[in-house]
């Protein structure tokens, strides 16, 4: 799994029927060393009610289809959690509640 920040939404009417009902979000990868955005944005499927600005954890490949919302759906990645904390070697690198205060 990796981290990403939600930055937007996608609307698509003409699509594989099996994608109907899924919420498509634009996310940008977060490098866990710097906790900064790094890499190309991509489109993924929300399974947890994530909102713009939130740091989320996503899974890729067939693992991303092991959720109630994505079972049997043709997705290649999905958001599986909204991140509260990231702790690395005793340092709190991310704290959702402090980040919320800051904004």
């Amino acid at each position, binding site marked *: 799994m990796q981290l990403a920040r939600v930055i937007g939404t996608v609307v698509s009417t003409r699509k594989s029927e099996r994608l109907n009902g899924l919420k498509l979000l634009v996310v940008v990868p977060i490098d866990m060393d710097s906790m900064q955005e790094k890499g190309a944005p991509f489109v993924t499927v929300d399974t947890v009610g994530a909102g713009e600005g939130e740091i989320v954890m996503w899974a890729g490949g*067939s*693992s991303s289809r*092991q959720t109630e919302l994505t079972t049997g759906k043709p997705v290649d990645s999905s958001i599986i*959690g909204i991140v509260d904390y990231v*702790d690395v070697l005793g340092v709190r690198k991310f704290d959702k509640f402090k980040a919320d205060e800051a904004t």
Partner: protein
Amino acid sequence: MIIGRVVGTVVCSVKTQTLEGLKLMVVRRLVNGQEKELMIAGDGTRQAGIGDTVYMIGRLEAALQIDMSNPPPVDLTISGIVDPETL
């Protein structure tokens, strides 16, 4: 399977239901002993701690290794901890 060193944890209170109870570890990938990027892995051993050298399985096998009958959406799982004295 790939090799890494456990360096931290991730906590999500809002998450897919099948992730409940699974510890999420931040792991520094090691390639031929060289430190590479950080990744998040589910702790299939339930015993991994900071500093442990571990090996991890990816793809759907990661989910099946956590729970064959109700696999969670994880794409990387810690399969085992390398005995430190053998490093």
